[in-house]
């Protein structure tokens, strides 16, 4: 059992860090540490330019195969890359949905024509993608999709009609992958299709959702007979659920250490603040700061265990606690930040509703335990899949 990365991974780390040091500066200085979760609405144009810059230097899609312009980076190298990216204050990756979700899905399930059509623009940083899964009545119960896809035999196109919700970056995206019902008689995960839809067309309407932070990174997206060509369905009609679930499996935890580096930055800010405003002398806050530190360290080693894999099938069980663990930890960190700020936490930066970084983090962490599978759903999954407890009974609708 070893704690450390290999020497070659560490050499790769230096290469990444050097490139970031030399390039994440000048015109990009302003976007350092920006555009992460809770801040995705900010500096969109600059972040798009940054995405293209990374693309030119071959730092997008490093985990992709060489044939599609990737570096065929190992899991370890991808982890190291993400960690260094976050350490350097790399801005929230506006291209991450294309790179980490859509791209790998196409590489595995797409036709050659689809790959040739879509992969290069993701790789270059030109095309931004968004995700069309959730609907007003398909939240935790994701298979309860009502958006319809009707095939027009004559025009050889699909017409998509319905509503998606919680779509990040919808208004900045060129494409959206959409799960829609191709068999209108079918229910649940049967009879779905997985579509790649051009967002720049008349049948698509985007409405931002104003969040409790006053900002909007999530949107509602309405499809009114939006057109999707017959070539732009991944897999067969009826196989959409399988493709949709496989897509969620591609992320494989490579960005989790990067995420933890962002958490570390936030934690360091809190420590700095506590030292400067005297909160570091409050015995209860000292305990809570230490507890947050313990929690973040253990999060790292939870992750390293999962990334190291296991020969004995324990892997899945360990991986299953990750979302519940980090979301709960981060939500507590948000509250700790406010308690360390003390009474001043009530005062904003400016009118009309400009939050500072910790205030914004505090408010947005309430979303962490909801999106991507609520804590309640996570606990069900852990109990059912890892501990072998009976599944929740389903209703009859």
């Amino acid at each position, binding site marked *: *059992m*070893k*704690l450390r*990365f290999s020497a070659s991974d560490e050499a790769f780390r230096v290469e990444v860090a050097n490139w970031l040091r030399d390039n994440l500066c000048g015109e990009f200085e302003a976007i350092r540490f920006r555009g992460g979760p809770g801040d995705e609405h900010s500096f969109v144009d600059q972040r798009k330019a940054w995405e293209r810059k990374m693309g030119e230097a071959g730092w997008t899609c490093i985990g992709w195969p060489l044939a599609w312009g990737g570096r065929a980076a190992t*899991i*370890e190298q991808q*982890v190291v890359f993400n960690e260094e990216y976050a350490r350097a204050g790399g801005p929230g990756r506006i291209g991450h949905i294309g790179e980490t979700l859509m791209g790998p899905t196409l590489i595995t399930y797409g036709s050659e024509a689809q790959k040739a059509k879509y992969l290069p623009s993701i790789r270059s940083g030109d095309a931004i993608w968004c995700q069309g899964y959730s609907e007003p009545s398909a939240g935790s119960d994701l298979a309860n999709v009502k958006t319809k896809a009707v095939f027009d035999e004559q025009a050889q196109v699909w017409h998509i009609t319905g509503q998606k919700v919680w779509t990040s970056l919808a208004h900045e995206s060129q494409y959206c992958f959409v799960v829609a019902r191709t068999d209108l008689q079918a229910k649940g995960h049967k009879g779905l299709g997985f579509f790649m839809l051009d967002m720049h067309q008349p049948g698509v309407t985007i409405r931002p959702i104003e969040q409790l932070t006053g900002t909007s990174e999530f949107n509602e997206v309405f499809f009114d007979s939006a057109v999707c060509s017959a070539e732009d369905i991944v897999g067969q009609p009826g196989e959409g659920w399988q493709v949709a679930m496989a897509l969620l499996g591609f992320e494989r935890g490579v960005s989790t250490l990067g995420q933890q580096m962002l958490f570390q930055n936030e934690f*360091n800010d809190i*420590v700095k603040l*506590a*030292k400067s405003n005297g909160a*570091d002398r409050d*015995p209860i806050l*000292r*305990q809570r*700061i*230490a*507890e947050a*530190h*313990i929690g973040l*360290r*253990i999060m*790292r*080693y*939870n992750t*390293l*265990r999962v*990334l*190291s*894999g*296991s*020969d*004995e099938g324990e892997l899945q*069980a*360990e991986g299953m*606690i990750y979302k*519940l*663990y980090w979301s709960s930890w981060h939500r507590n960190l948000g509250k700790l930040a406010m308690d360390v700020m003390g009474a001043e936490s009530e005062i904003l930066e400016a009118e009309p509703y400009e939050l500072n970084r910790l205030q914004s983090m505090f408010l947005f962490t309430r979303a962490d335990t909801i999106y991507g599978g609520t804590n*309640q759903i*996570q*606990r*069900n999954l*852990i*109990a*059912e899949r*890892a*501990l*072998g*407890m*009976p599944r*929740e*009974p389903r209703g009859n609708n």
Partner: protein
Amino acid sequence: MEFKFTDEQIMIRDTAEAFVSEVSTSAAVRSAMLEPAGYDADLWRQISGELFWQALPIPEALGGLGLGYVELAATLEQTGRFLLCSPLVATAAFAVPAIRLAANAAQQELYLGRVLEGQVATLAHAGVQTHGSQVDVQATVSDQGVYLNGVSRRVLNGQTADFFIVAAQETFASGEQGLSLWFVDSGTQGLTVKALPTMDQTRRLAELRFENLVLSPEQRLGGVAASQEPLQEQRQCQAQVLNSILDLAAIAVSAEQVGGAQQSLDISVAYIKERVQFGRTIASYQAIKHKCADMMLKAESARSGLYYAACIADEFLAGSCDAETLAEAASISKAYSSEAFFFNAGCGIQLHGGVGITSEYDIQLYFKRARALESFLGNASEHRERLAKQLLDSEVSL
């Protein structure tokens, strides 16, 4: 990334699991609890004579198995999981690190040799880290020699130990004080050992009382002649060494806690899958499932913290990380696993319902073990305060 057991470590873990699950059954634990020693002496002879587990962390050059703290943690995770009653932790995880870190070469050969023969050894130090007096034993240096006086409470397996490593406040002729460690054999004149009744009956603690016990310079760990007054620097160094010994011991306790946290979950899940109310197993209720999910999160996270701390312990013993890094890792592991085990054992009683509070079901034994280990060698809040000092009170941030 190889943050996982090697094939050899898996073999060590599996061997321990197979052996302990067979010899440390519920009936065996309950029978050991009634023994005056607190364990089955024949079983200890088997562990120390055939399995040679106390030799795991002893270097090969000194006759041991030359394995590391990861292997020790893997073994203790299993002993803790099945509540094994034995002086293994006291000997292998308290006394052995003390000897390795503080004793000189001749002492190492002599005392590790005794450990290898199956003698029971332990550390006489309460290990309270942030409040209360750490050491209530005084070693007084005078022209006539060195005398030990005072009381050391809560000494693990003190009642059956063949020899002790005693932490003492040393007062020199000049009136200056410093910490020192001493080898003391059981049966030495001036030493009285009294068994203390304990809430957790699977683990025995004793009180040692020293009354003008005469020490010779050779008994001092490190062998600095007692009449010679160590320099200020050396004294600080000794306090640091003692802290590192306690850190290594705390990591071993964490290993037993992780095993206990896992087993509290496992026996509870087994129970609730059988228990039927309102026509269905209670495992099908979401209120029950969610509690079990939280327990699994705690057990797995405590395990990750333990493996990290065990790796750091090996780095420390190999000289590739400093005492401060070891202290941080030990406090992280001990703080988290203390609360995880107590949480899981407490939830375990609740999940068992009424039978959870009977003596017949084992979950109460885990609950008491969890409580005992939680406050042993520093509880979670003491370790958090130690981390807070590192984070908040120093100019250098972590």
